[in-house]
């Protein structure tokens, strides 16, 4: 599979929902497969909260496998022999697109905590500029899971003429109170890290690693189901040779410690706060006084909504809410509920016919 990684600079300004303006910005993207002559085979995939532009294949530098590699690739559900797949790192992220770790041209210094607040609608607007740049008038499919699923839904609302199909997986039309609460605990652990320096840690040549690590450990608990955790780790003790620290007793502790540590090495704390705020702030019906049906009445594409039974972070009922509002608004929308052994993370894996259903939708 041909993986092309590109940093695209946009000179046009982007007015953000918050009222701030970015005079210019960068988007880091990856593409897979070839765009056909009439540019009708393009698919945009939107990453989840901590994901990035690397959606499929193995990165030649880091050796890392893309976050949706089980779904995207040659002869996979989203077949790169047939489709041209694009994934971009969201604005405010820390994997190459403009965000808190980029340099602010006005000051010559790194943005840090001063990077403006971004929203899911802002991401969609920036991706619309990306589609114009790539000369793609209509995406065959815009899809994503979790935060990426919310983004896909927003695409269908913001630019109804520019996509044919939309896949919303393990997502919701707005974050729940519980989602916001979990995110606030994560943010609090970052803010209370002695190395946070009110978000100015880069100037102090340090980073709030401990806070970021604890935040990620909490996050990981919410991504898995109780059953899956039990099956994967049980109450097994961690092997002494492979303990990440002396404090660890159980395998599940070791797992969380390892994942948290790895994440805190690579992710930026200000980005974490920005991204979780974007997630909390999302409400597809914000511009229609809370009326989701009205918000969705503009949709012209077909929607495929998938929820997973074991997902307690974005339970399937949240997907059903989208389906119902869509049906009330006479939008073509399908709702499928799958067992999904892996909790919220189920949207990442080709199991339970999930990949087959995506493929059937794509080819229909």
């Amino acid at each position: 599979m041909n993986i092309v990684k590109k940093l695209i600079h946009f000179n046009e300004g982007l007015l953000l929902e918050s009222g701030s303006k970015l005079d210019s910005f960068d988007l880091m993207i990856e593409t897979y497969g070839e765009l056909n002559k009439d540019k009708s085979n393009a698919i945009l995939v939107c990453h989840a909260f901590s994901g990035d532009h690397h959606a499929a294949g193995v990165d030649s530098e880091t050796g890392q496998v893309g976050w949706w590699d089980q779904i995207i690739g040659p002869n996979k559900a989203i077949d790169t022999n047939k489709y041209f797949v694009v994934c971009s790192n969201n604005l405010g992220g820390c994997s190459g697109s403009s965000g808190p770790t980029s340099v602010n041209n006005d000051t010559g210094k790194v943005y840090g905590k001063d990077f403006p607040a971004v929203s899911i609608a802002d991401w969609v607007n920036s991706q619309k500029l990306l589609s114009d740049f790539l000369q793609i008038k209509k995406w065959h499919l815009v899809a994503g899971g979790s935060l990426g699923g919310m983004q896909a839904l927003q695409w269908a609302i913001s630019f109804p003429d520019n996509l044919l199909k939309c896949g919303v997986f393990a997502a919701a039309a707005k974050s729940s109170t519980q989602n916001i609460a979990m995110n606030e605990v994560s943010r609090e652990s970052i803010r209370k890290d002695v190395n946070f320096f009110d978000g100015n840690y880069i100037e102090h040549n340090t980073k709030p690693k401990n806070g970021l690590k604890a935040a990620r450990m909490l996050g990981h608990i919410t991504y898995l189901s109780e059953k899956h955790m039990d099956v994967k780790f049980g109450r097994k003790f961690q092997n002494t040779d492979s303990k990440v620290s002396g404090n660890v007793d159980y395998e599940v502790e070791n797992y969380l410690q390892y994942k948290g540590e790895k994440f805190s090495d690579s992710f930026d704390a200000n980005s974490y706060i920005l991204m979780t705020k974007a997630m909390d702030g999302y409400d597809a019906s914000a511009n229609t006084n809370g009326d989701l049906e009205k918000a969705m009445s503009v949709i012209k594409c077909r929607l495929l909504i998938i929820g997973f039974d074991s997902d307690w972070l974005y339970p399937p009922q949240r997907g059903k809410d989208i389906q119902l509002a869509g049906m009330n608004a006479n939008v073509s929308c399908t709702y499928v509920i799958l067992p999904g052994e892996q909790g919220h993370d189920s949207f990442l894996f080709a199991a339970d016919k999930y990949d087959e259903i995506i493929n059937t939708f794509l080819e229909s």
Partner: protein
Amino acid sequence: MSISLTNIINDWIPDQSKVIDFGCGDGSLLKELIDTKKIHGYGVEIDSKKIQECIAKGLSVIQQDIDDGFEEFESSNFDISIMASSIQCLKDPHLALRRMLKLSNKCVVTLPNLGYWRCRADLVFGKMPVTPNLPSSWYETDNLHLCTINDFEKLCEDEGFIINKKIFLNPNRDRSFLASISPNLFASEGVYLLGSK
């Protein structure tokens, strides 16, 4: 070859109406109604494999167990709800019918007739009926609540459902003379257009 249900209920479905098909199976009926009547159609189905066939046809389908209720659809303003050859598979057929008539003024219901003479003959010879309308053996069937035409019409009377139209069919889905004069004995299938008082 049997005639499709679409031809039989064609006149009952206005063009461009909003239709929900409970137990839509592979979505054939919905697809035909969309092609011929330009309806806004939604299907409800529990089986993932059949749902996939619906998705392949480009249909809108909701994965749901009808027995769990569907009050949430009442705000969708459906013109017609359909339940074709599924009513006998439900835990509570009478509740499903009540709910259907709450969400649309018109309901199309089709059901196999256990009073059909071939079913009776099978029973006379001491075996569970297996006919073109009831093709599965007793241990494989999804049917929980089979009834006769008379049973069904008695239920409608007791529940206050108005039978606006009815058509009785033989196994070829033809409207035979015998089925029309003595449906409880000669119809293998009943097709009803119900309304509420």
